[in-house]
């Protein structure tokens, strides 16, 4: 009895692996905000992890709670500097 070539057996498996991934839904606004805040904080708080909660207390002024439990305030000063400080109000 003649055996099927290995390539024929493997082909369906290979094709299954090469299928295009399903189109991802665009991220929600909250996901984008969390991602931007996370990347902004990455240099100051590399161990902070993902942003768990955030709230905006004014334009360019955020209270951010990281997965590590760190809470900080991120705001922009009058001269355009981004200032990250531990949040004092919790």
């Amino acid at each position, binding site marked *: 009895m003649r055996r099927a070539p290995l390539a024929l057996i493997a082909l369906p498996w290979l094709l299954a692996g090469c299928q295009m991934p399903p189109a991802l839904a*665009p991220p929600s*606004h909250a996901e984008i905000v969390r991602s931007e*805040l996370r990347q*902004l904080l990455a*240099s100051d708080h590399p161990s902070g992890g993902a942003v768990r909660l955030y709230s905006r207390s004014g334009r*360019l002024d955020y209270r951010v709670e990281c997965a590590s439990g760190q809470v900080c305030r991120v705001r*922009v000063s009058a*001269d*355009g*500097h981004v200032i990250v400080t531990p949040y004092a109000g919790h």
Partner: protein
Amino acid sequence: MLDMPCHFVMRPLFLLRATPALAAAAALILALCGGAARAAGEDTHAAVLHACPKVQQEIVDLDMLAEGLKNSGAVGMFEKLRLKSAIDELIGRFKAFHRGATQYTLAELQEQYELLMMRIAHQLQDKDLALHGQLCNAWGSIWATLQDRGRFMEKFS
């Protein structure tokens, strides 16, 4: 005068057909209301970023900002790529918005824009004073272009 409610002129459009004088008056009120809206927008910008350093050369759009980032020594190569990608994604969201997509509201897009500007400013501050100053000064004018459908489509379509 500037605080007058501007929405009332939008309702009785049939009155515009009534008399030329009435139409002229409505046009005048609309012009004043437009000025008030612009003034309010500028005040919001001024209230937060009122002490930007003076700069020799101004940035007027996101392309110039991206070009400045590309040539800046303050940002590492991988971060440059990440920021360029983030700028392109934001422009893509604005394109979709101006073509009628409702995934994000204009207020949400403004927040996304400002967070991206914060992220870029954070990278530049204390390292590239010239580009940081340009970014600070251009914060409001870039937003004005992004939110204005006509100006945006002229630039990006």
